[in-house]
């Protein structure tokens, strides 16, 4: 596989296969300890990251491989004005697989055209974040036992929330999924997802500003952070940042087996008192992220 830019680059059977493989790695980690021996992964992070970068690096180490790269554009020749194309072409000479995060939308696609090694998009601006989506799908499958016939609420920044866009695209291919979109007007889902995915495929969805009014209907609640770095105007960010704060009080009407997901980092949109609620699964997502990325690295490198 040459690239993973958009979650839709993977077919449903391929996603199901990755989820199955991740489960097997989790259950039998020793089987996989040497699978990537002598393989090198370049992590090119032009934008800060904690979980995604650490989970990719941890995944590669647990497969017996090596990691090189940078975690900040300022520590690479990008600070001298080098293009994405030249940076990636160079990195691909020294590595077997490239993982890239970039603030500009479409940068990993450009990289994939220039790279000699397979490229994984680890987040491009507010656009796509397919490996977070794999993590989310793996977590939903693990916790709910299925990916179909679910009512999934997306809450917060649906405009710039790339994890939301990718997850909606992915879930649109499973039967019986209903989408509940909860956001202020300014942060509504962009048309290329709403029209291009939900309307185009005739999927059931509702839009609301009121989280509590829809809480009881949800099987999955996907919370998101209002991302300061996506705003050109600080005033808009300050006005919208606290639009939704999930507290124990607001969960009173939620189903007892609803799960709460969040791609993290959070700021204050989920109160810390919810962390001990059995429905809170966002730290399970962090753990799951490493295993699904291990499965993905194996697939991209063509290793069983």
């Amino acid at each position, binding site marked *: 596989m040459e690239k993973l830019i958009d979650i839709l680059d993977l077919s449903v059977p391929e996603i199901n296969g990755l989820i199955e493989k991740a489960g097997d790695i989790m259950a039998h980690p020793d089987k996989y300890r040497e699978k990537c021996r002598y393989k090198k992964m370049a992590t090119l992070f032009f934008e800060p990251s904690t979980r995604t970068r650490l989970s990719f690096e941890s995944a590669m180490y647990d497969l017996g491989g090596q990691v090189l790269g940078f975690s900040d554009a300022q520590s690479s020749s990008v600070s001298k004005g080098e*293009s*994405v*194309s030249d940076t990636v072409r160079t990195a691909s000479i020294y590595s077997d697989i490239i993982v890239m995060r*970039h*603030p*500009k*939308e*479409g*940068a990993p*696609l*450009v990289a994939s055209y220039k790279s000699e090694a397979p490229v994984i998009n680890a987040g*491009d*601006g*507010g*656009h796509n974040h397919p490996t977070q989506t794999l993590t989310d799908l793996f977590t939903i499958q693990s916790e709910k036992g299925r990916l179909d016939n679910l009512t999934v609420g997306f809450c917060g920044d649906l405009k710039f929330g790339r994890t939301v866009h990718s997850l909606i695209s992915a879930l649109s291919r499973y039967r019986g999924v209903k989408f509940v979109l909860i956001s202020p007007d300014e942060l509504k889902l962009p*048309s*290329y997802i709403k029209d*291009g995915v939900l309307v185009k495929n005739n999927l059931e969805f509702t839009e609301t500003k009121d989280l509590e009014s829809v809480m009881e209907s949800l099987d999955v609640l996907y919370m998101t952070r209002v991302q300061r770095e996506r705003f*050109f105007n600080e005033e808009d960010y300050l006005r919208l940042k606290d639009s939704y704060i999930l507290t124990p009080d607001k969960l009173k009407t939620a189903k007892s087996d609803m799960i709460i997901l969040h791609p993290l980092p959070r700021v204050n949109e989920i109160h810390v008192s919810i962390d001990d609620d059995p429905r809170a699964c966002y730290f399970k997502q962090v753990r799951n992220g490493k295993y699904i990325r291990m499965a993905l690295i194996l697939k991209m490198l063509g290793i069983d």
Partner: protein
Amino acid sequence: MNIDSIKNGIVIDHIKAGQAMKLYSLLELDRLECPVAIIKNAQSKKMGKKDIIKIDTRMEVDLDIIGYVDPDITVNVIEDGKLVEKKHLQLPEMLRDVIKCKNPRCITSTENGIPHVFKLCDAGKKLYRCLYCETKAPDEN
């Protein structure tokens, strides 16, 4: 009003009235040394009014650009004063370096040397999106 017929060249016909200059610009016909005639608001039985462009030389025109502006335009190839080919157009699947993405968050806003590419997402709505960031093409028609 009469414009001399051409002996060898291209006649771009059935252009919606008012769109000839846009097409002239997109096809970069200003770079040509040969005579180029732009006829605006010509009478048309089918369209009422139409524009026509006549290019007095043999050349390849970018049919994707013309198809993007309007797939109902016809391109006539003239040789020795006779019509030898009538090309019917369609909306192109991809547009390369015809229009520019205006999303400031798109990689095309900072990366030099990459083409601006738009792909056709909905032919019925004539909807194009940027290949890189999926932003809608600017509506220029």
